[in-house]
Structures are given as C-alpha cells and as structure tokens.
C-alpha cells in the first residue's frame, strides 16, 4: 500500500500538473502577441489592425487563432500542433528574410491558413437582416455550392476581411482596360510578309507590336523516353512525327497584346437572354470580345509585357480569330506537336539546355541543395518566380530564339487531351492534331508555380474548366475569364501560307 501510494499519488499529481501546464501552454501560445513574435512581417500585424476584424464597430477584436485555426473541438488541437511544428521547423531551419510574404498572402496560399469552419463559427447567420441584395445573392450562391460539395470558401470573396489590402477589388471591374496607355506610335497597317523570315507583327489601330519567329519544319521525337526522370505515363510512347514550317510568337501573348484585342472588341457587360423572344437579337458578324472581368485578372502583378492570364481557352481562340481578321493572316493556337517541336529547338533531353535532371530537384529531406544555376537562366518556375508571372525578358531564349517556352505561364494547345494520345499516333505522322474530340485541351510548358519536374519539355497537362471557374458567381459562368486559374496563357502560331507569301 505504501509502495502503491509512493508511485501512484505522485503519478496523479504529475498528470494533473502536465494537463494544467499543457492547458497553460496552449493558452500562452495562442495569444496575438505570441503569434506576432515570430510572424514579424510588418504587413500581418498592421494590415490586421486596419481590417474590419480588428477595427470593428462593436469594439471587439478578432484574434489570430480565431481565423487561422479551426474552432476548438473541431480540429483545433491537431491543426495547432501541425502549424506549431511547421513554425518551429521554419524558425530554426529557414531564414525568414527569404519568405515571400506577398505570395503567401495571395488567395492560393491564404486558403490553407484560414478555416471556413472558423468563419462560420462567429458568422453563424449568413443572412443578417441588414445584408444587401448583392450580399444575399452571393451568400445564397455560397450555400448552394457548399451543399453540392463544391469547395468555395469565405475568403474566396472576403480576402481582405482579416488583413486589409488597399488594392483589393471585390466588384465588377468595369474600368478594366479603359485607361488609355501613353501616346505612342499607332500602327495603321499589319506587317507585310512575303517570304519565310521572322517578322514584327504590328496590330493596326494600336501601338502594339510583337515578334514572330520562323520555325523551320522537320521531324522529331514527340514525348519522352521511358527512362526520363520525373516522366508521366501520358508522355509516351515517344514517337517520331513531323511538322511543317510555321511562325511562332517569340513570347507568350502579353497583356499589351491582349489589351489591344480587349480595347477593340470588349462587350458591354452581361445580358440576359433567357426571355429570348422578348428581346431583339441582332445578328452581327463582328467578333465580340471579352466582357469586363470581375476583380483583377492580372492579380495585381502588373500587365505590360507579362503574359496575359486568367483568360479562358475560348478567349484565347477568339483572340486568334480577331488577330487573323485585323492582320489578314492565319493566326491560331499551336498544336501540341508544333509546340513541342518549337520548345525542343532540335534538342532531345528533358530540357533544351544542358543540365543533370538528377540535380535540379531536391528529393527528400537530406539530399543536397539542388543546382539551379542553369535552370534559373532559362525558366521562370517555382524557385525563382516569387510565385507570380514575370516580364518576358526575365530569362534567355531557347535555340530557336523563343522565350519562356518552359515556364512563366503554361500554354494552351489546340489538341484535345487524352492520356493515351501518343499511342494513337502513326509513326512519322505529318502535323498530327491529336484526338478528334474530347473534353479538355492540352496545356504544355510549366508555369511560375511549377516544380523543375513540371517544366520538362515533354510534360503534359490539360485545362480544368470546372475547377477554374469554381468561384465565378455568375451563371452562366464567364466564357472569357477564369476565376481560379492564373498560371496559364498562350502563344500564337501564324501559318506560313498563301496569305503570308507561301504560294
């Protein structure tokens, strides 16, 4: 009995002490002060204090953990331990000066650090009596989508609710593209092309020009060999195909180029035609372009020579149609074969530059730091992009003179995507165009958010239309702007044909 007491009583006391201590520790590590002792980036604290969650009408403040952890009893502790471990690791093994706080505050990252459950915990009534009509419509949309199991979160629309951002736009961006650019030379005529040499296209009635480079046709091995590192099954079998000569844009279609299209064709907002017969429908042959976007399609990263993003496949196709019309040539999206032929520039490896694939990627915790010197010279990708698009001359060109084939933004191709597309190819096929029908289109080349594995030439991906329109509150959803895709753009092909002097 004595022995029992000797072991048992201190045991219980120790247990109580531990539980009490853990409780105290949880409390102590959940204060705003504790959070900001590590999260020293100034914008976190200041922007929080300027947000509606601090500067409230009622005088209460919403604290860090109330948004950045789930509610107590609904995963609070698990998430606290997870973020805690992550923070401890970052604190000891990383240099906070390297953190890209700007990128981390973007929606793409922010959704991982705020919890809808927590929003709903306080905002239990999504329909307060003073809610505006627009607010009511938006919350009805949220409720109906959430009930369907579609991932749409409060901060998809209320990104600035916890951390104030003066540039955040949460409305139809009617003024988009209206502000005129600096007075510059206005081109009256498109470029005249009579032979197969690279040329500078000039968009009539605009100050915009861009370079189109000659790609001399030939045969090459499409796809990757089975032993290529990081290879996916859809990249093979590696098959010899041929492409004819064509012109290809030196850079991905830039905002400057796209805005020329937008300025000359933009539609005037949405119209409802569900009551059809009661409205006059005029038939017009003119190309009707994109409607004003919602929010900022450039994500606030700037336009100019950065590639145009957030634009739909349909918008890209319409752009090509319009460009063909105003220049009298035949512009279109590249086929997958054309794209890869151009990207390879007569090389046959994983990249068009010399690099050991084994060394570009860090694999596992203890492998040596990846060697990124060469890849940084040619590709805008996850490790050097600050998680946003860059201007076209951020990198050097490939052997054909093309920039950003492998990074910056991924690019639409005209082929339908299937996993086994290359299996269907006949050897030495000339100008293959891919499967005759499908649901989503091929996209090639990595983007600012890709890993080194994903910026390999042979890497394939495809459009994800439903997902990329996930938070578009309009129905029918916009056919012009993706609400949830900022990493894809496109490059134009100009056909070498009778219109460009090839008789």
């Amino acid at each position, binding site marked *: 009995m004595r022995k029992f007491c000797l072991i048992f009583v201190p045991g219980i006391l120790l247990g109580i002490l531990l539980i009490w201590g853990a409780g105290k520790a949880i409390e102590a590590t959940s204060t705003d002060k504790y959070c900001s002792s590590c999260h020293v980036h100034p914008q976190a604290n200041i922007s929080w204090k300027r947000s509606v969650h601090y500067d409230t009408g009622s005088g209460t403040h919403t604290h860090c953990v109330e948004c950045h952890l789930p509610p107590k009893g609904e995963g609070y502790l698990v998430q606290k331990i997870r973020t805690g471990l992550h923070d401890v690791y970052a604190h000891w093994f990383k240099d906070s000066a390297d953190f890209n706080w700007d990128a981390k505050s973007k929606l793409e990252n922010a959704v991982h650090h705020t919890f809808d459950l927590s929003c709903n915990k306080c905002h239990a009534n999504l329909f307060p009596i003073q809610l505006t009509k627009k607010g*009511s419509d938006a919350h009805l949309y949220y409720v109906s989508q959430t009930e369907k199991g579609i991932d749409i979160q409060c901060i998809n629309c209320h990104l600035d609710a916890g951390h104030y951002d003066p540039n955040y736009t949460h409305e139809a961006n009617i003024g988009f593209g209206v502000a005129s650019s600096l007075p510059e030379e206005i081109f009256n005529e498109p470029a005249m092309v009579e032979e197969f040499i690279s040329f500078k296209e000039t968009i009539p009635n605009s100050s915009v020009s861009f370079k189109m480079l000659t790609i001399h046709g030939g045969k090459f091995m499409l796809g990757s060999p089975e032993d290529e590192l990081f290879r996916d099954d859809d990249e093979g079998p590696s098959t010899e195909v041929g492409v004819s000569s064509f012109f290809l844009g030196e850079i991905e279609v830039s905002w400057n180029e796209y805005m020329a299209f937008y300025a000359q064709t933009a539609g005037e907002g949405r119209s409802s035609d569900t009551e059809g017969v009661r409205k006059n429908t005029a038939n017009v042959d003119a190309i009707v372009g994109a409607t004003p976007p919602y929010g900022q399609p450039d994500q606030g990263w700037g336009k100019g020579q950065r590639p145009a993003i957030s634009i739909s496949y349909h918008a890209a196709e319409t752009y090509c149609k319009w460009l063909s019309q105003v220049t009298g040539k035949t512009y279109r999206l590249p086929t997958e074969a054309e794209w890869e032929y151009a990207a390879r520039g007569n090389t046959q490896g994983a990249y068009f530059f010399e690099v050991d694939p084994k060394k570009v990627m860090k694999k596992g915790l203890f492998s040596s730091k990846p060697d990124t010197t060469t890849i940084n010279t040619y590709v805008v990708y996850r490790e050097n992009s600050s998680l946003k698009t860059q201007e076209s001359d951020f990198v050097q060109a490939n052997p054909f003179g093309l920039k950003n084939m492998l990074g910056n933004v991924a690019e639409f191709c005209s082929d339908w995507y299937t996993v086994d597309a290359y299996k269907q190819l006949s050897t030495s096929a000339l100008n293959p165009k891919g499967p005759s029908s499908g649901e989503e289109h091929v996209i090639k080349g990595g983007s600012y958010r*890709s890993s080194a594995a994903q910026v390999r030439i042979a890497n394939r991906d495809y459009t994800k239309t439903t997902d990329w329109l996930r938070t578009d509150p309009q129905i029918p959803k916009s056919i012009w702007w993706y609400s949830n895709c900022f990493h894809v753009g496109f490059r134009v092909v100009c056909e070498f044909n009778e219109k460009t002097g090839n008789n």
Partner: protein
Amino acid sequence: MKNKPSLSRRSFLGRAATAGAIGVVSPALIHSCAPSKDIKDVKYDLCSFLDQAPDGPELKAGLIGCGGRGTGAAQNFLDAGPNLKIIALADVIPDKLNAAKKKLKENKNNEVPDENCFIGFDAYEKLLALDLDVVLIATPPHFRPIHFEAAVQARKHVFMEKPVAVDPQGAVSIMGTAKKAEGLGLSVVAGTQRRHQRNYVETYKNIAGGMIGELTGGNVYWNGGKLWHRNPNTQWNEMEYMIRNWVNWIWLSGDHIVEQHVHNLDVAHWFFGAHPVKALGFGSRQRRVTGDQYDNFSIDFVFEDGRHLHSMCRQINGCNGGVYERLQGQNGSTNAKDIINGLNGETLWEYPYELDEEGKHKGFLSPYVQEHVDLVNAIRTDTPINEGENVAKSTMLAIMGRISAYTGKETTWDEMMNTDLKLGPKVYAMGNVDVDKAVPIPGEAWKPK
C-alpha cells in the same frame, strides 16, 4: 498538382450528385458547425395536426391585399384559435379593401378601425409601421418579394400566398429574405396548403419512410377550365385594370403555370426532397380572352440525377381535366394524397378517413385553416417554422418551366438563379403601364432565303 486519372466528367457529376444528396438530408449543414445560441432551430415538418392553435396573448395581424384570397386568408387566420385579431388592412383599390372590411365584420365580428385601413402602392409600409405580430400577404404575386422583405425587416411573422414571385429575381429575393427571417427566429408559412393537408402529410411520411423505395419519376397535373377575367372599363386606368385582371397578365401572376400549377410542382418538390435542375417544354395561347398569358403548358423537368418529372397544365373550357399528382417509385406508385399502390396495383396503404353514419368521409380540418393553426402554434410555442425557401424554390421551378415554353429553349436552375430577368414596370403608379404586352412566341419564324 496534376490529377490525370480523374478526367471524367461523369465521375465528377456522380460525386457531385452524392454530395448534393447529403446536402439535402442536412439543409443546415454549413450552419450546423456552430449552432449559435442566437439562432433558433427552425422546424421543417410543418403540420402540427392540431385542430386549434393553443391560447396565448392576443396576436394582432394585418392583411396586405384584400381581394378574394386575402379576405379568405384573413378569415382562416381568425378561425385558427383564440385571441387572434385582424387590426389593419392595405390594398391599392378602395372597393376591395372596403369589401374585405365588411366581410370580416359580418362573418367574424372582427372590426378593423378606419385609421388602420390604408390605400395605395405604399399602403403596406403604413400597415407595417403599426404594432403588429403577424402579416398576411395576398397581393398579386408580382409584389410578394417587396412585401415579404418589408415584413421581415419589420420583424413580423408572415403568412404569404403562393406563388411568391413571377420572375427569377423575385424568387431569389424570397430565398434570401426567408434566410433573414430564419436568422431572426420568425415564422413563415406559405399558401402551398397541401403541406398542411393531413392526408398528404401522412402519405408523405410513408413515401419518405420508403414504402415504395426511391421515387423514380412522376407526373403532375392542373388541367382545368378557364379562370375568371375582367374586361377593360373606362373608369379604370390601365394599372387599375391590370391589377383587377391580374390572373391574366404575366408580370402580375407569372402565368397560370406559376400562379396555379405551382401547387402540384410543390408536391413533387416536397416528395422528391429535391427540385429538378432542367426544363424543356412548350405551351401556347388558344382561348384566353384577355391579357398576355398562355393557357396551356407541358413541361419535361429533369432532376440532377436524371430522373424525369412531367408537368401539364391547362385553363381551357370543354376539355378533359384533372388536378392531381402521380409519383412512381421503385416498388409502387402514389397519388401523393391518400393512396399508395404496389407495382401490380394492389393497395399498400390508404389514408384512414373517419367515416360518418352514412359511411362518407368525415374529412378533417381544412388545410386553409390548418396552415394558420400551424403558424399561430409556431409563434405561441416559440418553435419557428419557415417554408419561405421551399415555396420560393417551387415557384422558381414553375418559372423555369414557363421560360422554357416561352423561348423554346432548355432552361436550367443555375441560369434561373443568376439571370437578371425581372418583369413589370419600373415604377408602380396608377396610369399607363410600361410593360411589353406581346404574347411570347418561341423559336424563329421561317425566312425565305
């Protein structure tokens, strides 16, 4: 980042449908994570089965819309239990208001003071400024969204007649306002009275309990004769004429598929536990005398998982008629009202009507009174009920069918939820009415080339 094996629209839809079904089981899913103490749980089983509402402090009600149904609803309200009073009336047309005032006095000995009688398009605002507990809304459906919103903003419990809107914007507005009412713990009852009709409710319980398995499809009908109409009169300006003749104008009634047939569509919506998401249908105008509406519709509705619901409605004299529902299940069928049959026609269940000495059905409390009993019971026992969203969705369903018939095009629920379509004039005033009065014609005319 890549997710190649899942590139199949079908599998995606399958998952979405499953998630949708779960959503239906738990409509308050997203709120349920944190049932705040400020928000009352709202009951969705509407019928109390009480013959009389319990007694309690006097409930004062106001009536907005003093036509035949409004006057009827006011009397049904007074019949629902002890200590109930109509103390205010509002309408745009004086003789309608006076007739209602007189009827309430004669039939129910309910005196409405003159100073609480309001005339005009803003009469509802004056009525809502009074010290009221309940508002009964029975104006032409075009005005329902405005009146409902104002009533909830004024924190009143609401009875409102069906349909609750004539256009998609109106139906969406009702859905939002219903949610606001829910947040305030107000009760909202709608005039889709089958949900308060005891034989329907008992049948529903058996179907929901799985007596014939899952429902696989159905047909709903409101085929009847011509409804009433008014001819223009030199003493009436156009607005007054249209309002007096409201069941013949699209912008006021929503057309008869919305105004009348919504009852049967609501039964399907209720029994299926979901609403169709697509409609393709047709209709036409053969014998209607006034206004701009059709007088027949036939619509094929499709649910998210592919099940079909057919709907038929007509208002033409001298044709065969019938107002009923027929719902098919895996193991039988039901008329939704009082009988459930097996696959071979055998009776699985019948509503146990009480019989009198002559062996005839004795009947039960009229659903038109029952719905007010249920409303007053909810208020006095502080257990809110709210059928605003149900009736808004049933109304939207009817609107979706109508627009398909008008345009000849397939319409979808998502389009309906997001179109900016709104009917009616920009301002409400006596005088000429600035609306398109052409009868809708679907499709395109053939043009010689």
